């Protein structure tokens, strides 16, 4: 067990931006929420997977909805506690820990708010190893573990239990609840035992995020190249360095999609890279050749500062470096690709591993 305080929180939020692969929402609001909770209640205990008892109940927590709404309608702070307690009540059991479902972006730090408020340990693991847009896109699903029963709560005091027949139904029902609740809700979901956790989560995600954040911060101070450091830390590979030439945004089937064209600089002068995004970066393409695709992480960084750039921030003129980093190996199985591979997102090609993993 180790303690997590304000300093580590800063690094985690920065590193989580990298792991968001363009999506997952800006962790700023989540970081403030967790920081205020730590200031009021003291530091948070973090436990490793092997420190959780086999039969202990663990309830992950997350924010669901639009990050753009959450920066305007800030949470009351009670939502996450209410969702968590409702699910405990429904299950008739107390949970020993909480954890993140999604280490990329905002949801890396949401469970920390709950952990500080309830003096509850948080497990150093997550269910994706990155960010994805829908609830069923979690590794436990590959092991037959359900999203539900789940609890959802809003700022006004409403809450609800959802018990879907499968994970797609749960996502669908939770999505319509979220909309009614004002497009920002807090959820408690994927209840699991300690034994289940060890098999079907991505271990050490908080440490990964913290290490990435610390690397960026320290290499900046030393005037070294933070991008090299990120590439090494994630076992990734540089795909392209260039300047944003064009960002074409459109709404398609209810999703905000964009196609980004980068014009090469340095070694890539004369070449162009196309990024296809839907919340996260999904595909990187040079001419007709697909260089990388989901579920691998396509990460866009400011070429100078190494700061991760979200899909919504991308604008003409940005100088960026694109990295690809390997996803959790379970996403590369047939079942994993069915859930989050390029075909699920509407692309007519099969996934090919782009980076050593």
């Amino acid at each position: 067990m180790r303690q997590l305080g304000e300093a580590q929180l800063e690094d985690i939020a920065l590193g989580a931006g990298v792991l968001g692969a363009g999506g997952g929402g800006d962790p700023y609001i989540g970081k403030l929420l967790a920081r205020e909770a730590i200031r009021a209640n003291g530091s948070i205990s973090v436990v490793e997977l092997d420190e959780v008892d086999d039969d202990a109940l663990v309830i992950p927590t997350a924010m669901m909805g639009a990050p753009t709404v959450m920066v305007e309608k800030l949470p009351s702070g009670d939502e996450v506690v209410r969702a968590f307690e409702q699910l405990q009540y429904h299950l008739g059991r107390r949970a020993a820990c909480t954890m993140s479902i999604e280490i990329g972006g905002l949801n890396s730090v949401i469970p920390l708010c709950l952990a500080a408020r309830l003096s509850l340990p948080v497990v150093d693991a997550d269910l994706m190893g990155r960010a994805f847009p829908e609830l069923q896109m979690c590794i436990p699903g590959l092991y037959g573990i359900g999203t539900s029963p789940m609890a959802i709560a809003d700022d006004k005091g409403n809450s609800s239990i959802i018990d879907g027949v499968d994970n797609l139904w749960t996502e669908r029902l939770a999505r319509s609840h979220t909309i009614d609740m004002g497009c920002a809700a807090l959820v408690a979901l994927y209840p699991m035992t300690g034994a289940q956790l060890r098999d079907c989560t991505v271990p050490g995600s908080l440490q990964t995020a913290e290490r990435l954040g610390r690397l960026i911060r320290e290499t900046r101070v030393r005037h070294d190249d933070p991008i090299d450091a990120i590439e090494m830390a994630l076992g990734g590979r540089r795909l392209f360095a260039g300047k944003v030439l064009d960002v074409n945004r459109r709404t398609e089937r209810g999703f905000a999609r964009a196609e980004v064209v980068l014009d090469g600089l340095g070694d890539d002068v004369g070449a162009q890279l196309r990024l296809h995004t839907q919340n996260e970066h999904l595909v990187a393409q040079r001419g007709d050749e697909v260089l990388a695709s989901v579920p691998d992480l396509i990460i866009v960084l400011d070429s100078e500062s190494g700061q991760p750039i979200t899909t919504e921030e991308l604008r003409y003129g940005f100088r960026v470096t694109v990295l690809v980093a390997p996803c959790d190996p379970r996403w590369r199985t047939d079942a994993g690709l069915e859930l989050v591979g390029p075909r699920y997102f509407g692309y007519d090609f099969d996934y090919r591993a782009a980076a050593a993993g």
Partner: protein
Amino acid sequence: MIEASIRIGIDVGGTNTDAVLMDGDTVLAEVKRPTTADVTSGIVSGLGALLEATGVRPAEIAAVMIGTTHFTNAVVEARRLLPVAIVRLGLPATAALPPLTDWPARLREAVGGQVFMCHGGHEFDGRPISPLDRDELRRVGAEIAARGLRTLAVSSVFSPVNDEFEREAAQIICEEAPGLAVSLSAEVGRLGLLERENATIINAGLAELAVQITGAFRDALATSGISSPVYLSQNDGTLMSAEYVERYPVATFASGPTNSMRGAAMLSGESDCAVVDIGGTTADIGILSQGFPREAKTIIEIAGVRTNFRMPDVLALGIGGGSHVTPGGDPLVGPESVGYALTERGLVFGGDTLTASDLAVAAGRALIGDPALVAGLSRELVDAALASIERRIAEAVDRMKVSAQPLPVVVVGGGSVLLGDSLTGASRLVRPEHFAVANAIGASIAQVGGEVDHMVSVGPGLSREHALERAREQACERAVDAGAARDSVRVVDVEELALAYVPGNAVRIKVKAIGELAIRRRVGAATG
């Protein structure tokens, strides 16, 4: 509207007050005076010199435009700020992060009068989060009155979409606490509650200073016999009336770099260009598109407080006339600088420090100080260091550009002698005259704007085209409200952003309209 072309542009900086008398695009006279503690006498002295130099009579002046850093400086120094009654409407939402979260302690103490979290606010689709509680607001008003607070900041969740709660709450509170200065967040900022609220609180803290400073401007004009209207420049390069500034002084923040860029562009006759302003310590680089600076897209911190103002996108490089030069195979220029001590410490002035200006003199690009004092510098060093400066500035300009097309580059500022006659990636290099008063000239360019930034749900009830049309009309109407001549208003920027995870095809629409200032020639000028 008429051809009343004689205007005065004034830039009131922390150190100097610059003023220009303009006839159309022509500079008739320029003056530089030290800024005085009372503000007024420095301006009066500048105005007197302008009128005397040109023989223009006060009655001939159609308008006076002022750019000022007063309000920014007051916030940076946390001085002359009022304690603010801060009211947020949104409970039970937003309780986790009350107003002033993440503020530096010094500024929080300066403006943090009292925080009131109240019911109200809207959802993204316009439903109320909770109804306005009038009794609650009356109690808040009574407490504000009892505490003797004189200025009020009101923010409400999603007020850029619907500002009715902010207006109603302010009215109820003012009935209990008459005479309060009121700042509404919907008038100040965009979506992003904390950042918009921060800007609103800063604005409220400036309420009395705003009245004093605009009063000082009016006094200075009256003393000089000028009775034409006064406008102030805002950070996007458009003008606002002095009355508007009294209520919304934050709109002047960062108008300095904007005016400098617009002034440089006007002097050079370029409207789409890069502007490089090289001072003693830094080179500031910005991009003008259709005569207006490109906006920074990121969150802007002011004195350590996050805000989401419109701000010009400026890249600062540590290269200026006073930059230290460290000889070597690849000579290093900056970021350390002797700053305004250049005339004591630079080699050409008999000092002991090799500066970038010494290089310019040795290369024959500038004639300042005594060139004999740098005659002994190695030619290789001078060439290599100047080449390094040019390369870094060219790279920075390229970084700021939005396309690979070569762009005209306008160079201004005392350090502009560091550059030669051309620059890689520039279609041409322009060095306009009068660049020392580019700020004041930029202030005198008479355009006013209106902006809309809100979220709408498009669907059966409201088509996308209709929503866009309505936003365009609103932006134009706001430009007219701000003083634009109706027939000159045009929409210059439309941005439509679909929001991730928001249903019902919610889109964020941003529209900006610009028009010519409606200056009416006064009787005195017409008959005089």
